[in-house]
């Protein structure tokens, strides 16, 4: 990898200089090793990114646009026109929808009767599902088969575990990868987390799922692991064909860890 990007005429391009992006480990294949990949997903990955890089380079060389070293565009008019048009669109959409499809106004709530199904809003299903982790609550022989805490206490503490895990992730990984393929492990951790959010949400509404409850409970924890493993294998094989100095111009202001 050279430090300076040179054109055919020997003139330095403005996006030259070191990439600032380093491969995460010594096992990353070299350029020639990557080119030697002739089949499979790694070859496909190499061809995909190489084609897009080449298209970008061709466009750039055909263009008479002179790239300057600027940190950003001016607020007025560039950013303001873009922001105002986006804002106008969404405000107009809200006015249009509220005028054409006014929301349903239901009958007043009856405090003397309990509905058959009580659920939180859908985006809190994951937390509601954590309250149904009773089978994971161990009963201790030392207590004569009793549980250390009630199932509901256990479910509430599980919320702390999940929130704590999410809070710790930014300290373990700084997020310097620009694409999932650059850090397969953390990308697969993310895939597993997203799938777990979905499965634990399904567990929250287990009464409505036409499936055996025990099977559903097992799948809740197995599917995230399966999805994470599959994505790790896919990304790991893609990584062999990936070029780490892609798109460096867009990420020069954000050096890696």
């Amino acid at each position, binding site marked *: 990898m050279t430090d300076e990007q040179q054109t055919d005429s020997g003139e330095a391009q403005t996006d030259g200089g070191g990439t600032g992006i380093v491969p995460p480990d010594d096992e990353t294949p070299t350029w020639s090793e990557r080119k030697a990949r002739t089949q499979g997903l790694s070859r496909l990955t190499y061809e995909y990114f190489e084609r897009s890089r080449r298209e970008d380079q061709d466009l750039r060389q055909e263009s008479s646009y002179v790239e300057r070293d600027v940190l950003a565009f001016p607020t007025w008019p560039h950013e303001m026109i873009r922001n105002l048009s986006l804002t106008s669109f969404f405000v107009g959409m809200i006015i249009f929808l509220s005028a*054409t*499809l006014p929301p*349903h106004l*239901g009958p007043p709530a009856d405090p003397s009767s309990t509905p058959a199904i009580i659920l939180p809003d859908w985006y809190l299903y994951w937390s509601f599902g954590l309250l149904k982790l009773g089978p994971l609550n161990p009963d201790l022989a030392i207590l004569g088969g009793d549980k250390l805490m009630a199932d509901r206490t256990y479910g509430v503490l599980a919320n702390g575990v999940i929130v704590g895990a999410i809070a710790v992730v930014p300290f373990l990984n700084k997020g310097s990868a620009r694409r999932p393929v650059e850090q397969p492990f953390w990308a697969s951790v993310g895939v597993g987390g997203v799938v777990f959010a979905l499965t634990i949400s399904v567990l929250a509404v287990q009464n409505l799922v036409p499936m055996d409850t025990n099977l559903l409970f097992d799948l809740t924890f197995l599917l995230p692991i399966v999805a994470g493993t599959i994505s790790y294998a896919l990304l790991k094989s893609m990584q062999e064909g990936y070029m780490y100095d892609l798109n460096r111009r867009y990420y020069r202001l954000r050096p890696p860890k």
Partner: protein
Amino acid sequence: MADEFAKGLGILTGGGLVWMVLSGWYTNEGFESTQLFGEIPSGLGTYGQAAIVLRDALFWFTIIGVLVFWVVIPAFQQLREA
């Protein structure tokens, strides 16, 4: 290819939006019963019948338009390049 995608997306969102509004006006049986896909009411006036015709037309315009721009035209271009 990106242009074709944007055209298909525009058809999907634009046609779908107007279809959703017309369906909300005419074929919405209730909040807790069938929504948008309810029975077409009888005894509609001229405007109502025109809206139902427009609703059906938009439905198929959305489906066929998206298929054309996302599937048929790219496939045709691939065939022609091959």
